[in-house]
C-alpha cells in the first residue's frame, strides 16, 4: 500500500522535475541576461498568484526562455516553447515537438505546456504536498514518534534534493508573497474560527502578556545578546549592526502557530496549557510582524536618525497596528454575522461568504498596514458564534470542513516548502558562532521569559500555572514559517548578511520543529503533564457548568468584588441584549441556549447510534423498513427520548410473530434507548419500531428523480410529496387511534366527558376505556407540546389552543376528515386491540400508584402509541379551531387532563 503511494509520488515528482526543467535549462545559459531583460512583469505576477513556490526566479526563467523569441505572454506558448526547444536539453524535446515553426497545416493536437504551466505547477505542487502527507499518515508507527510537521519537512528535503539534482538551482522556494497571501490566511482563519472563545478570553490576560511582553523580550534579548557576542568577537567578521540584530531578533521571536498547532495537536495537553501556547502563538505572530516592520523602518532610517521621537512613534505604531488590526477583524466578523442573517435563499454559497470576507479582512488590514494576522484571527473568533447559529446546519458543516481542508492543506504545503527551500546552495552561509549562539539564546531566553512572566502572572491568577506546564510552554516555543517568511522579506541591500539570517532562521525552524517536536511527546509523558481528559459529553456536566458560572457571579456580587466572572457576566448580558439581537436571526436566537444545544446534539447522536446499532444487528427489518422513525424523532426533537422507548415497547407487546425475542419483560422504569446494556429490550425495540415505522412510512412513488441544480441540493423533495407524507401520517395515526378506541367503546360516550368528568371519574376507577382515553390524552399533550410554548399547567385548562405546530404542517385537510369515520370502525390493528385489553386491566391500579413494578411501563408503553399516533389530530384542532367542534363529535376528545401522578413532581 504505502509502496504504491510512494511509487505514485515518485512519478509525480519525475513529472514535476521534468517540467521544471523545461522552464529551467535555458536560463543556465542566459541567466544573467534573462533576469535583467525580462523582468518578467506579466508572468511572475501571475505566477505568484498560485503557488507556493516556484516564485519569481522560475517564472523569470520561463519567460526569459520565451523572451528570446517572442513576448513574455503565456498566450504565445507554442512559439515560446519552440524557442525553448532550441536551447533545451534533450530530455524534453517532446515538449517542443509540435513546436513553433510557422504553421503549414492544421495541427490536430498540440503541446501547450506554457499555456498552462503556472496553474499546472501550482496544482501539481499542491498534489505532491498532499501526497506526502498521505504517505506520512499511512505510516502510523512513524507519526506516533515523529510529528507530522517534522516528517513533512524531511519530505521537503528529499523533494528539494531532487529538484536541485535536476536543475542545479533551487527553482521552487517559499516566497513571502505566496506565503503571506495565499498560505497563511486560511490557517489563521481556521485557528480563529475554531478557537474556544470562553477558554481564550478567560486566559486572555496571560496570553496577552506572553504574546506581547514575551515576544518583545525574546526579540530584544536575542538581538542584544547577539550584538554583545558580536562585539565580543564571537562571530568573526560580520557586517551587522545593533539595529539589524534587533530586526533579526524580532523576526525570529515569535512562536509559530502553524508549527505549534501541528505539534500540540498530537500531544493532547490540558486545555489551559494548550490555549496559552496556542493563543500566544497566534497573537504574537501579529506582534512580531509589527515589531519587524518597526525595526525594518529603523534600519532603513539608519541609526543616526533614530531619536526619542522615532522610538515613541514606533511604540505608538505598535499599538495602533495591533489594536487596529484586531478591531478591523472584529468589524469584519460582525459584517459576516450580519450577512449570514440574510443568506437564507442562497444557501449554497452562504459558506463562501465566510471565506471571502475573512480573506478580505486580512487583505484590508494588510492594505491599511495594520496587523493582518490579528485581523483575521479576531474576525474568525467573533463571527463563529453568530454564523454557526445563523447558517443552515449543513452550511456550518461545510464551513467547518472547507476551513479544515484549506488550513490543513496549506499547512502541509508550508512545511513541505520549508523543507524544499533549504536545498539551495545560494542561501547557505555558514557562521558557526552566529548560528549556534542564536539557537542557544532563543532556547534560553524563551525559558527565562516564560518563567519570569509566569511568576508574575501567578501572583494574579486564580489557578497558577504549574511548573511543569511552564516547562512545556517554554519548550513548545517552536519557530516556523512566519519567521522564515519574514527573513526572506529582508532587503538584501540594506542588510548585507541577509543570507546568513535566512539560513539561521531555517536552522532554528528545523531545530525547533524537528528536534523539539520529536522530543515534545516523550517530554510530556515523562513530566506527567496533565493531559486533556477525553471526556464524554454529558448533559448533567453542562448543566452543572452553567450553575457554576451563575454561582460564581453571584458570589462575586455578594462579596462585592469585580472579578472576571463579574465581567463575563456583564459581557454576556450585553452580548445577549445587543449583539445577539442584531447579529442573529430571531429564529436562531430561540434555541441557542448552550445546554439545550448539548441536549440536541446528544439526541442526534442517540438517534444515529440507534440506527447504526439496528443495522449492525443486521435485521432484515431494517432493510425493509426505512427509518422514518429517526426523522420522526428529529422532528419532534427532544421530548421524544422519553416517549420513544415506550412506543417501541408498546408494539412489542403485540406482535406475536416478533415477540419471540422478548424474553425479558420490559423494565418498568422508562427505558433509555441509548443504554447499551439492555440488550434484550433493545432487540424488541428495534423490531417493533420497524413495524411501527412501516405503517407510517411514506414510500415515494417515483424513485429518485435527480435533478441537477446549482442552487439546491435536495433531490426529490416535492412539495406535494411532503404534503402527502404529512397527510398520510396524520391519517394513519388518527385511524389507528380511532379504531383502537372504537374497538372498546363508542366514541359518543367518551365525547361527552368534559375534562372535569374525567377528572372525577378517573380517580375512582372507571371504565376501562375511559381510563385509556385519559392516558392517551395525557401523553398526547406531552408529545405535542414540544413546539407550542404552553406549559403543562396551561394545558390543564380546557381544550388547548395551540399555535401552529410547524409552518406548513398543520394544514386543514378536507380530504382527510371525511375519511375518518368509515375507516375507523373497520380497522383495529390486532395488536392495538390486544394492547388495549392489556392496559385497561392495568389502568386502575396505575391510577392509584405511581410506580407499580410493571404497570407504568405497560401503561406508558401503551399510551404513547395511540398518543403519538393521535397526537397529530390535536394539532389539527389547534390549527383549525373552527373545525374543532366537528372533530369533537367524531373523534374522541383529546382530553387535557392533569398529568398523571408520576409526572406530577415534574411540575411543582
Amino acid at each position, binding site marked *: 500500500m504505502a509502496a504504491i503511494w510512494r511509487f505514485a509520488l515518485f512519478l509525480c515528482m519525475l513529472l514535476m522535475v521534468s517540467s521544471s526543467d523545461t522552464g529551467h535549462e535555458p536560463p543556465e545559459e542566459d541567466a544573467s541576461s534573462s533576469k535583467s531583460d525580462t523582468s518578467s512583469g506579466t508572468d511572475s505576477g501571475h505566477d505568484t498568484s498560485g503557488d507556493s513556490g516556484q516564485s519569481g526566479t522560475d517564472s523569470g526563467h520561463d519567460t526569459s526562455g520565451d523572451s528570446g523569441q517572442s513576448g513574455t505572454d503565456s498566450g504565445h506558448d507554442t512559439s515560446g516553447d519552440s524557442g525553448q526547444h532550441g536551447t533545451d536539453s534533450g530530455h524534453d524535446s517532446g515538449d517542443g515537438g509540435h513546436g513553433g515553426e510557422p504553421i503549414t497545416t492544421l495541427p490536430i493536437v498540440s503541446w501547450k505546456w506554457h499555456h498552462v504551466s503556472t496553474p499546472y505547477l501550482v496544482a501539481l505542487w499542491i498534489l505532491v504536498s498532499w501526497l506526502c502527507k498521505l504517505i506520512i499518515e499511512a505510516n502510523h508507527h512513524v507519526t506516533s514518534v515523529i510529528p507530522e510537521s517534522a516528517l513533512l519537512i524531511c519530505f521537503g528535503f528529499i523533494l528539494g534534493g531532487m529538484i536541485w539534482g535536476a536543475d542545479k538551482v533551487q527553482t521552487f522556494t517559499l516566497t513571502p508573497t505566496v506565503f503571506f497571501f495565499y498560505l497563511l490566511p486560511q490557517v489563521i482563519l481556521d485557528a480563529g474560527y475554531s478557537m474556544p472563545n470562553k477558554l481564550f478570553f478567560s486566559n486572555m490576560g496571560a496570553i496577552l502578556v506572553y504574546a506581547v511582553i514575551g515576544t518583545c523580550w525574546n526579540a530584544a534579548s536575542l538581538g542584544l545578546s547577539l550584538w554583545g557576542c558580536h562585539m565580543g568577537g564571537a562571530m568573526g567578521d560580520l557586517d551587522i549592526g545593533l539595529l539589524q540584530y534587533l530586526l533579526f531578533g524580532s523576526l525570529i521571536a515569535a512562536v509559530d502557530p502553524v508549527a505549534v498547532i501541528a505539534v500540540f495537536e498530537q500531544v493532547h495537553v490540558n486545555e489551559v496549557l494548550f490555549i496559552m501556547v496556542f493563543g500566544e502563538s497566534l497573537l504574537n505572530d501579529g506582534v512580531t510582524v509589527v515589531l519587524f516592520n518597526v525595526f525594518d523602518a529603523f534600519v532603513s532610517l539608519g541609526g543616526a536618525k533614530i531619536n526619542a521621537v522615532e522610538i515613541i512613534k514606533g511604540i505608538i505604531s505598535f499599538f495602533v497596528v495591533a489594536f487596529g488590526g484586531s478591531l478591523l477583524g472584529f468589524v469584519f466578523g460582525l459584517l459576516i454575522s450580519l450577512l449570514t442573517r440574510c443568506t437564507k435563499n442562497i444557501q449554497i454559497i452562504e459558506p463562501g461568504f465566510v471565506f471571502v470576507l475573512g480573506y478580505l479582512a486580512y487583505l484590508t488590514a494588510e492594505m491599511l498596514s495594520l496587523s493582518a494576522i490579528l485581523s483575521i484571527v479576531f474576525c474568525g473568533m467573533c463571527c463563529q458564534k453568530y454564523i454557526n447559529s445563523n447558517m443552515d446546519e449543513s452550511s456550518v458543516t461545510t464551513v467547518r470542513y472547507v476551513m479544515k481542508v484549506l488550513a490543513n492543506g496549506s499547512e502541509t504545503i508550508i512545511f513541505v516548502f520549508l523543507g524544499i527551500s533549504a536545498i539551495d546552495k545560494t542561501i547557505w552561509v555558514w557562521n558557526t558562532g552566529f548560528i549556534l549562539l542564536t539557537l542557544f539564546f532563543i532556547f534560553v531566553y524563551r525559558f527565562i521569559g516564560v518563567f519570569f512572566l509566569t511568576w508574575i502572572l501567578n501572583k*494574579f491568577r*486564580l*489557578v497558577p500555572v504549574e511548573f511543569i506546564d511552564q516547562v512545556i510552554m517554554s519548550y513548545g516555543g517552536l519557530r516556523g514559517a512566519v519567521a522564515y517568511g519574514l527573513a526572506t522579506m529582508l532587503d538584501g541591500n540594506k542588510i548585507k548578511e541577509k543570507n546568513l539570517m535566512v539560513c539561521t532562521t531555517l536552522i532554528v525552524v528545523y531545530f525547533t520543529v524537528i528536534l523539539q517536536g520529536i522530543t515534545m511527546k516523550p517530554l510530556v509523558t515523562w513530566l506527567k503533564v496533565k493531559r486533556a*481528559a477525553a*471526556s464524554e459529553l*454529558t*448533559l*448533567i*456536566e453542562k*448543566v*452543572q*457548568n*452553567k*450553575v*457554576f458560572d*451563575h*454561582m*460564581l457571579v*453571584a*458570589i462575586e*456580587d*455578594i*462579596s*462585592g*468584588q469585580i*472579578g*472576571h*466572572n*463579574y465581567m463575563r*457576566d456583564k459581557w454576556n*448580558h450585553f452580548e445577549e441584549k445587543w449583539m445577539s439581537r442584531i447579529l442573529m436571526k430571531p429564529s436562531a436566537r*430561540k*434555541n*441557542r*441556549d448552550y*445546554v*439545550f444545544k448539548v*441536549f440536541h446534539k446528544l439526541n442526534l447522536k442517540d438517534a444515529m447510534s440507534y440506527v447504526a446499532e439496528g443495522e449492525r444487528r443486521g435485521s432484515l427489518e431494517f432493510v425493509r423498513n426505512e427509518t422514518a422513525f429517526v426523522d420522526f424523532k428529529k422532528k419532534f*426533537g*427532544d*421530548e*421524544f*427520548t*422519553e416517549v420513544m422507548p415506550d412506543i417501541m415497547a408498546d408494539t412489542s407487546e403485540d406482535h406475536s410473530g416478533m415477540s419471540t425475542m422478548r424474553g425479558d419483560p420490559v423494565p418498568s*422504569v*422508562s427505558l*433509555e434507548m441509548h443504554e447499551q446494556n439492555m440488550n434484550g429490550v433493545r432487540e424488541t425495540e428495534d423490531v417493533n419500531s420497524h413495524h411501527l415505522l412501516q405503517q407510517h412510512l411514506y414510500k415515494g412513488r417515483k424513485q429518485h428523480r435527480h435533478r441537477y441544480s446549482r442552487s439546491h441540493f435536495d433531490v426529490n423533495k416535492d412539495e406535494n410529496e411532503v404534503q402527502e407524507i404529512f397527510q398520510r401520517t396524520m391519517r394513519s395515526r388518527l385511524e389507528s387511534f380511532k379504531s383502537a378506541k372504537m374497538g372498546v367503546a363508542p366514541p359518543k360516550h367518551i365525547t361527552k366527558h368534559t375534562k372535569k368528568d374525567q377528572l372525577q371519574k378517573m380517580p375512582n376507577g372507571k371504565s376501562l376505556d375511559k381510563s385509556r382515553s385519559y392516558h392517551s390524552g395525557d401523553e398526547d399533550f*406531552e408529545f405535542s*407540546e*414540544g413546539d*407550542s*410554548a*404552553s*406549559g*403543562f*399547567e396551561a394545558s390543564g385548562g380546557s381544550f388547548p389552543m395551540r399555535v401552529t405546530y410547524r409552518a406548513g404542517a398543520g394544514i386543514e385537510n378536507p380530504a382527510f376528515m371525511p375519511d375518518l369515520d368509515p375507516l375507523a370502525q373497520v380497522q383495529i390493528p390486532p395488536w392495538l386491540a390486544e394492547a388495549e385489553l392489556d392496559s385497561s386491566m392495568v389502568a386502575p391500579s396505575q391510577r392509584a400508584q405511581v410506580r407499580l413494578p410493571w404497570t407504568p411501563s405497560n401503561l406508558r408503553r401503551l399510551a404513547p402509541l395511540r398518543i403519538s399516533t393521535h397526537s397529530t389530530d390535536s394539532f389539527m384542532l389547534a390549527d383549525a379551531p373552527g373545525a374543532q367542534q366537528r372533530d369533537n363529535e367524531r373523534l374522541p376528545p383529546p382530553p387535557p387532563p392533569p398529568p398523571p401522578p408520576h409526572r406530577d*413532581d*415534574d*411540575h*411543582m
Partner: protein
Amino acid sequence: MGSNSSSMNNIPNAEQLVQETGFSAAHILRLYERFQFLDKDDTGQLRPEDFGAVRELAMNPIGDRIISAFFSPGQETLDFASFVRVLAHFRPADSNRTRDGAQPEPANSSMGKLKFAFQLYDQDRDGKISRAELLQVLRAMLGMQVTEEQLQSIAERAIQEADFDQDDAISFDEFRKSLEKVNIDHKMSIRFLS
C-alpha cells in the same frame, strides 16, 4: 497596616475565622466591610432581604438559591462568621496548606465545594436531587428559551445520566461521580481581593 489591625479588632472572632476559613486577615477585613455594607440596619445580622441590595443578584437566575444557601435551614439571619464560612467555599484550594487529619475538611476542598453546589439543588435537604428539583434549576436557567416540554426531557436525560441506582434522583455520591471529570477547584473558585 495600622488601620487594618485596629478594625480587625472590631470583628468578632476574627482570629478564629482566619484560622478556620483560611482567609487572610486582609480578606476578612474586606469581607467585613462588605458585610457591613449589606447590613443596612447595623444589626450584625443579615436577612435575606439585605441581599436584595445587590442589584445584579436579582438578575441572576439562581440568585435566590445562592442567597438561601447562605442561611442554614430554619434560620432567618446570618452573622458575619457564617457569612465568611459560606464564602470560604469559593476560596481557591491551596496546595501548600497541610491538612492535619484531625481538622475537618476545609470548606474550600473540592468536596466542600461540591457539597455547596449540591445543596443548591437539594432544596428540601433530603440528600437527593429529585427530578423536580433539577427541573426547577433548569427552568430558572433556561427560562424563556425552551419549552416546558423540552425542559422536562432535559431534566429526564440529565437524571438518567447521573442516576446509577435507578431511583430517579441524584444522590450526592452520584452527583460527585457525574462531575468527576470537571475540575471543581477551577470551576468553583474566585479570586478574593484583599
